[in-house]
């Protein structure tokens, strides 16, 4: 086979691959992926304010954080955008792949840009206010080590004996109320963004924020369930 024939064959193959990819691209569903960075920023902000409210021991006036962080491309595509020298590649197959990748990027980029987290809905503010009100009551129990954060963004009793007998009476009820408020907050954020199914991912994002921003001396559970002191 001469080089010319070889190039011709390769050209047909490339065209065939291009056609196949075009056909496939017609069936692509564009998903809005969970905006992990926006969720992390929102979690850090909310958690910080709840800790602040707890430290003040008073309810903070509700504020409406409208976090608008462009989400990172959370969904990796196999046809990742090539470098700037992509067009210099001689193969029509590579050129087609590049065009398709650009097309995907354009579509995906548009979808992801809309995937920010809005935490200004009345439901979220109400949930936050309830959480901040309970946080002030929970703080002595966190400081003493009676309670700690679980690995899934809730709280649990770590060592009830760490507080005097009298203070333990309200402990179980407070933990239950705190967990209800936390679950409500995660769900309200998910609902406010039109994705109730995100509640679990938001909860996991907050779980890290509660631990990362916790003052020294707070207890938390590792993913394996072991209690550790920060």
């Amino acid at each position, binding site marked *: 086979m001469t080089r010319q024939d070889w190039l011709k064959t390769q050209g047909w193959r490339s065209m065939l691959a291009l056609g196949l990819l075009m056909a496939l691209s017609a069936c692509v569903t564009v998903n809005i992926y969970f905006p992990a960075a926006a969720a992390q920023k929102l979690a850090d902000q909310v958690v910080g304010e709840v800790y602040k409210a707890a430290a003040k021991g008073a*309810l903070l006036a*509700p504020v*409406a954080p*409208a976090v608008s962080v462009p989400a990172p491309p959370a969904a990796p595509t196999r046809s990742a955008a090539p470098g700037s020298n992509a067009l210099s590649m001689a193969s029509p197959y590579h050129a087609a792949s590049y065009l398709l990748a650009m097309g995907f990027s354009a579509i995906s980029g548009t979808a992801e840009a809309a995937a920010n987290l809005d935490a*200004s*809905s*009345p*439901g979220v*503010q*109400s949930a936050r*206010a*309830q959480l901040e*009100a*309970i946080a002030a*009551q929970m703080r002595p129990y966190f400081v003493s080590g009676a309670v700690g954060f679980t690995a899934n963004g809730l709280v649990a*009793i770590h*060592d*009830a*004996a760490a507080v005097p*007998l*009298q203070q*333990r*009476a*309200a*402990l*179980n*009820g*407070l933990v239950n*109320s705190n967990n209800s408020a936390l679950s409500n907050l995660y769900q309200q954020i998910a609902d406010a963004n039109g994705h109730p199914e995100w509640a679990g991912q938001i909860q996991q994002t907050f779980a890290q924020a509660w631990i990362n921003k916790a003052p020294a001396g707070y207890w938390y559970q590792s993913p394996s369930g072991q209690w550790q002191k920060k």
Partner: protein
Amino acid sequence: MHGRSRVLPRIVRWLLLPYLGLVVSGAAGAQVLEISAADVSGAGWTVQHPRVTLATSAQGDQLRLAVGVVQTGRRKLWRRARWQCGLRTTQGWACPQGHLVVDGSPWGALHGDGQVRLRQVGGSGQAVLAVRGAQFGSARVQVQSTAAGQWHLTGAGSLPVGGLVRAFTLLPASWQTSGQARWQVRAQGASWAQARQMAFELQGSQLQFSSPDGLQGAQGVALQLQGAGVYSGRWHGSARLRWTAGGVLWSPWYWTAPAEPVQVKARWKQTSRAWQLDEGSVRWPGLGQGGFALYWPTQSGVLRWQIRDMNVAMAPLYANWIKPLALPGGLAAGLQASGQVRFSVAGEGGLNALRWDLRNAAVSSPNRLLAVTGVNSRGAWSRIGKISAATLRWQSAALYRIPVGPLHADLVVNPQGFHLRQPFTLTMLGGELHFRQLAARWTGPRSGFSMSGDLQGASMAQLTRIMHWPPFTGTVSATIPELQYHAGDLSTSGALSAQVFGGTVRVNDLHVENFFGVLPLLRANIEISGVRLKPLTDAFHFGYISGVLHGGVKNLALLNWSPEAFDAQFHTVPVPGVRQEISYAAVQNLTRLGGGNGIGGLFQSLFLRMFKTFAYAHLGMGVRLSHGVAELSGVGVEDSGFVILQGQGLPRVDIVGYNRRVNWNELLARLQTAMHSGAQVQTGE
């Protein structure tokens, strides 16, 4: 001598020893004498495999006692207990230095030293047993008997409470217990075989217990239990318990001993199946007092109890017994109560029946969201299907600082809740709130309260003043289809409708989350139809506008009673016989509301002032609030603006706004004061 021995039912243990003495005397010259039995038992106790061994030698006599198991009822107190001592027989029998070893007991393995003395003079006898050990404290028991068989026993000692609790399984085995108890006992009998009377006293100090999760516990508790009993076919007597110090946690409750001791007295009775406490009385200083009875099966069955005619103060009852059950942060958790209540309660496992008589009580929340005074209520409730009557009265009340008049309601109480026997009426806001239906359910997914009724002639002026809303005049009448309160949330299953300014306002899908809690959140959809603008604008001092208004508010969200989001649209509709006119003052105000500074220009102003009213074709406005920004719209579009007022005839006045987006607080301010902006007024000339 081996065999199975059944001793007389009421025999006392020490009577075995003189019997053994006779056996030993008769067997003089024997090197070793051993007596054993399969078991020896009396009323409530059993000793398995007892064995007595007497060994004589030139060095002296040795007495050894051994038992396999000592148990009371089904509880095994000792396993493999041995007593060994050198026996002296010069003046009666004496073991001056004995050694006790018990392999298993509630206190663990026991080691102790002690002495036993037995003396017999004529027909009289005396026995003394004294033991002391590190694990079980000390005990000294002395028994004296006469030839006629009458005997008298005294005993005293101390012991760690942990073992006692484990022995009688007073608490689960995994719980930690500690503390010391001192005990005294006196008993006497008319014959060798039977005890007739007994008295006991148990004093516990520094008592502590703790459950593994730490949610049940006690610290520094001091208790004193005294009692006496008589045997006449069965044991019965009296007992008194005094709690003098310490705190007890039984989550979610915590109680501390008051300055004066809590005192419980009762008559007690032991039968073959149960312990019974009758004619009991409880006196809890600072709380109240009453009677009780209790039936405690020893083998199988459920604990039955009654508390009778407890007369207690509402303040400590609510604070220490009821409030701990409330959700933190909820209304009930913040309430304070006062007054007196007399109640009786009965239970068998759970709560079975309740009868109450509440007198001159008051309930209030710190922020005055709820306040009720002069509360009197009587009634009864039973879990087992009986319907009973109850009454509820109060002199005055306030809900969300809205005063409410006196109440007199007759209720029918059933096992699941209560409902009204007959409708009643409350006065409020100068009008009347008529309750057609009011009901409550204690349990289940629909637990909570529900009501339906009508509101007639409520003064809006009073309501707006109390709620610090913009002043509003007139009265409101409303129909409440079914209002439900469940787990802190308030909702309606139908539409609330009110007659306002000649029209109808319908509130659909009303739902208030966290009604009495932090930052209540209201959601609703509101429709209005046929509202006459003249009385409406008169009420708001907005200037004269006549016409009929339709519209609604969709997706209304009030956070802490302040608007957070809604989509409102209002517009006039032509109705035969109703003129559509607007005054100069109203034009000025509409202009300001739309973002303008009134009617600009000297000529326009002077010209328009010549006319009292202007006819219009369309009037309306839309406001969409989101994220603190209101987006305005009108009844039409002109150029890049929105038409609020479209005039008709001559002179014609149109109001067109151009600032579509405005801060919500600014819009609120425009309602009261004129703001500077760029609305345009066209005279149509």
